[in-house]
């Protein structure tokens, strides 16, 4: 691939300009030729007309003088008079119209000379001679001389006419050729332009429009969250650059999202681990020591003799206080992290939540396998929060909890028959739960139409190799 799109566009445009320009140039030249031919045709018509006028005058002179010679009456000499007065102008007109044609000029001058000579040297002396005698017939010799002169003039005139017709025919042939060239040039220009424009349009749509449309569609999918989307990087020049930029942008977005997801997952796992450790420390440390103290206290109590009533009562009170303190501590510890979740997994933990719930809970937990701690924790806290909400806010009479493994995911559904109308965006622990679920790549949806109870559904992806029995 050499050159970018813009260079190709420039080359194609230059080609188009060249083709259209050449077509128009040929058309202009042909128009010029046609105008020349038309001028030549007008010239030929003018020459023919002038020649005819001269011929008529000569014929009028000849016939007029003959009629005068036969009749001897002046009235028959009228056409001769007219022709005699018109001839110089007509000859001048003939010489004028052929002034630009060297080939014809000599013929016209010869006609002019011989016609003038005919008038001066033959016709006028003859008419004067006839007037001199009363009635006579012209001599045979004079008549023959007049005929010969007229024929000679006519011959030259015919030659001039023939030559002019030849020039006209040649001009007509050039005109036809020019018209033919114009048609070919116009047709070539038209077809060439159409082909070039079609090709250009096809190229632009293939090299620019289509890749841009594909990239735009991919950008839409990218914006919608499909970060795995990529465009083919086979575009020309700048378009290819655009495609590569788009792909690297999508790749860095995907990388950033992966990094963010891992970071969130690590944060959640770290928080869970901290809670587990605190719970263990409480259990192994303070709780054990307080329990031990309580037992030692009761040992002391058991060793008392019967007459120490006040002391026994006091010890009873302290033992009860210690028991209450231990119960409180146990609840705090349980809230931090439920040991049963680590020991028994999601099934026992969910059923424990059901037993502790203030309202009746029906559980259906088909998961007996152990799942990754993060998944178990997320599932546990979702059920715990949902049960708390159902008891506190929904005024529900029963809650159904369903937990199962399906298609590589842990599916949780918590449904109550309460008031509904819960808004997951409105405070509540659901936002924290959504964060926790999303950190694991899962989804959480809340469906809570007013008056029709609330259904919470969570799906958490679990890889098969992370499941243990």
């Amino acid at each position: 691939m050499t050159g970018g799109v813009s260079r190709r566009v420039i080359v194609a445009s230059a080609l188009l300009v060249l083709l259209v320009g050449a077509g128009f140039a040929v058309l202009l030249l042909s128009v010029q030729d046609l105008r020349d031919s038309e001028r030549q045709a007008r010239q030929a018509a003018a020459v023919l007309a002038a020649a005819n006028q001269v011929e008529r005058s000569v014929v009028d002179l000849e016939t007029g003088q003959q009629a005068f010679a036969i009749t001897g009456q002046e009235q028959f000499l009228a056409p001769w008079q007219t022709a005699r007065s018109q001839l110089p102008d007509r000859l001048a007109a003939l010489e004028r119209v052929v002034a630009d044609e060297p080939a014809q000029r000599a013929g016209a001058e010869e006609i002019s000379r011989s016609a003038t000579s005919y008038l001066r040297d033959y016709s006028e002396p003859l008419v004067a001679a006839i007037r001199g005698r009363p009635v006579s017939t012209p001599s045979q010799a004079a008549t023959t001389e007049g005929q010969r002169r007229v024929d000679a003039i006519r011959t030259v005139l015919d030659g001039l006419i023939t030559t002019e017709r030849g020039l006209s025919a040649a001009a007509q042939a050039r005109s036809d050729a020019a018209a033919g060239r114009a048609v070919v040039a116009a047709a070539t220009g038209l077809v060439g332009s159409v082909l070039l424009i079609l090709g250009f349009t096809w190229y632009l749509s293939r090299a620019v429009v289509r890749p841009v449309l594909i990239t735009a569609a991919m950008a839409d999918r990218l914006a919608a969250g499909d970060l795995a989307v990529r465009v083919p990087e086979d575009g020309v020049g700048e378009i290819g650059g655009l495609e590569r930029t788009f792909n690297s942008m999508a790749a860095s977005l995907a990388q950033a999202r992966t990094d963010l997801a891992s970071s969130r997952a690590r944060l959640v796992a770290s928080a869970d681990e901290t809670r587990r450790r605190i719970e263990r420390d409480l259990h192994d440390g303070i709780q054990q020591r307080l329990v031990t103290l309580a037992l030692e206290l009761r040992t002391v109590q058991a060793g008392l003799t019967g007459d120490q009533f006040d002391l026994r009562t006091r010890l009873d009170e302290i033992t009860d206080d210690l028991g209450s303190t231990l119960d409180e501590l146990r609840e705090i510890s349980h809230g931090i992290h439920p040991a049963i979740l680590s020991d028994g997994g999601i099934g026992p933990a969910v059923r424990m939540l059901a037993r502790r719930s203030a309202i009746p809970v029906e559980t259906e937990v088909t998961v007996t396998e152990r799942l990754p701690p993060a998944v178990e924790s997320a599932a546990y806290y979702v059920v715990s929060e949902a049960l708390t909400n159902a008891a506190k806010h929904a005024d529900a009479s029963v809650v159904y909890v369903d937990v199962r493994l399906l298609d590589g995911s842990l599916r949780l559904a918590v449904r109550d028959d309460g008031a509904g109308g819960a808004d997951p965006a409105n405070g509540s622990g659901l936002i924290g739960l959504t964060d926790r679920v999303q950190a694991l790549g899962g989804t959480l949806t809340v469906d809570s139409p007013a008056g029709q109870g609330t259904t919470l559904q969570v799906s958490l992806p679990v890889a098969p190799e992370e499941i243990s029995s």
Partner: protein
Amino acid sequence: MLRCAIVDDNRRFLDAARGLLEREGVAVVGTATSGAGAVDLVEDSHPDVVLVDIDLGAESGFDIVARLDRLSPPPRVILISTYAEQDYAELIDASAAIGFVPKTRLSAVAIGNLLRRATH
């Protein structure tokens, strides 16, 4: 006199429990801090009842109950814990133990009640 063994990973608790139960008239024939120690103790002393902590840190009390139950004859076992009974209810039910006593309510009377109930 009722003969009893106690399995727990906390020495101070073992001492306190032994002191209380003996004061209340129960003979504590021995204590163990692990599953293996519990098996040895039961095989050597054949106590009437073994008190097993649910959570020994490194080991699960339920696993120890299962190991003891495979002995011949299997001893009667009572699970003890600082955790609430309802938290572990179904694991306790599923185990071979005859019952559960919270560590804070540990007494000769409580043990006697469970044994009587198990016998009937």
